[in-house]
């Protein structure tokens, strides 16, 4: 690096640049926060959906699945599973409920979580809610 470019110039670029871009980021965050309720259909976020999210978290579903493309890559995307299952909450509930305790020999299997009926209903409702978030047309197709 040339000698006319001094250490204190480098330091000023670091502090100035960082502060400037933190402010830009906060401004964008502010705007995003205001725009989100329309995009994620906040009006549909019922107490049941919130409970469903807790069921999702309490059982660490994200440890195998992706949700809106984030999580683990061992099992299918679930952000659009409501649509993949034919817009049918019952199908989702039956699937979760009927997982064999000891898995399917030789294959990747989902654990049996022993969810109560209330928990099943809530998590299905949460997945339905998630499928309605405006994700800029992601995923590319129904397979997730």
């Amino acid at each position, binding site marked *: 690096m040339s000698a006319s470019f001094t250490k204190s110039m480098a330091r000023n670029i670091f502090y100035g640049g960082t502060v400037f871009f933190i402010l830009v980021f906060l401004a964008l965050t502010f705007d995003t926060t205001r725009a*989100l309720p329309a995009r994620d259909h906040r009006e549909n976020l019922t107490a049941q959906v919130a409970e469903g999210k807790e069921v999702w978290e309490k059982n660490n579903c994200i440890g195998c699945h992706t949700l809106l493309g984030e999580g683990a890559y061992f099992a299918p995307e679930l952000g659009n599973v409501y649509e993949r299952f034919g817009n049918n909450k019952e199908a989702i509930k039956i699937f979760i409920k009927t997982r064999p305790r000891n898995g399917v020999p030789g294959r990747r299997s989902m654990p049996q979580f022993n969810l109560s009926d209330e928990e099943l209903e809530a998590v299905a409702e949460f997945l339905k809610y998630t499928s309605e978030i405006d994700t800029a047309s992601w995923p590319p197709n129904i397979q997730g």
Partner: protein
Amino acid sequence: MVYQSQAVAKPYFIAAIGLFVGQVMFGLILGLQYVIGDFLFPTIPFNVARMVHTNLLIVWLLFGFMGATYYLIPEEAETELHSPRLAIITFWVFLAAGVLTILGYLMVPYATLAEATGNSLLPTMGREFLEQPTLTKIGIVVVALAFLYNVGITVLKGKKTVINTVLLLGLTGLALMFLFAFYNPSALTLDKYYWWWVVHLWVEGVWELILGAILAFVLIKVTGVDREVIEKWLYVIIAAALVTGIIGTGHHYYWIGAPEYWQWWGSIFSALEPLPFFMMTLFAFNMVNRRRRNHPNKAATLWALGTAVMAFLGAGVWGFLHTLAPVNFYTHGTQITAAHGHLAFFGAYVMIVLTIISYAAPQLLGQGEARSNRQQVLEMWSFWLMSVAMVFIVLFLTGAGILQIWLQRVSENPQPFMAVQEQIALFYWMRTVAGIVFFIGVMVFVASFLVKGREVARETPAAIEAAA
């Protein structure tokens, strides 16, 4: 070692290596579960093994960062650590919290763990990388505060160099961003939005300051190049890191429900994120070429150069590969992500911790400036085994990812996820084989500490003209 209190780094480094071994063992379990679906099911389901794998990674890297800090702060500040006792107490608290959490994952169902630790009072669990019980998270904050207090006071009473200032900034940022782990709104998009303030603003933000500071410290020591030059480089590198990385967070906001302008902000700024990593590579090679001495710890120099190169490949090249929105539309949440995650974490953060361990070990073990030739040769073997194996892991995952995207997302008849996974199993097998080689590399690293070696490496007096 110039100051007595630098010795507190030793238990931190030992714990780091021990947990690293555990992390990679669980990596192998995951790799096998990918191809033998019912391996260890239902005793250790995939999600449990994955939590252990990723949380051990984060915990041992934090042990490494703390050890590095305790080692280099007294030397930079030219004073003893404020309280070595506190450093040892926090060591045991952190280790106990870490081990108990991992045992909790392995011994009871996750839902039971959540209930037993009162998750419903302040739900923070069940999100990727932040799976720890809320109690553990609070413990982490307490340890971080005690740690920052201890090193903060040390720097305040001693000399403030660029290296210890940047390191402290990075560590403070690490603790601050972690606080967002406690924010878990019910609105999924909002939750994800701030989740990335922990994850992205760590690895592509404040951790780069820690990485840069440790690298600069080791380079000053092993090359003897003028501090002024190194510190100027450090400022330029971290300026590039934060100027691109903060807005670069937007590359995670394309498809989670955030406004679509993030596709522009995220693509443009994150496309520039490889820059600081590229500069790190130039920096490391430049400094080694201009060296004023030939430090006898050849292994540490190799690790430092390796860090720069592999971080550039993993974060820079593999990051750029999938960061533009039109590309990410197809790669998002596939094995391409896993490929990048492995090379970036390994190249940048695993390797910088191994670099400082390699540099500090002979001094902490009372061997002088360098370990014996035999030990260094083993260490260099472990360097090549791990690095080459990791490159292969990543190439196999990239192959799997490309096929996955084609079969599941692009071809005319997109196939279901599980059907696609079966067709690309060969790549997962090859990844697991490369993983075994990686594990051997880790064991060789450990072995380099167990063998004895009488003959101590010395500085070669010749070739100093190389500096001219």
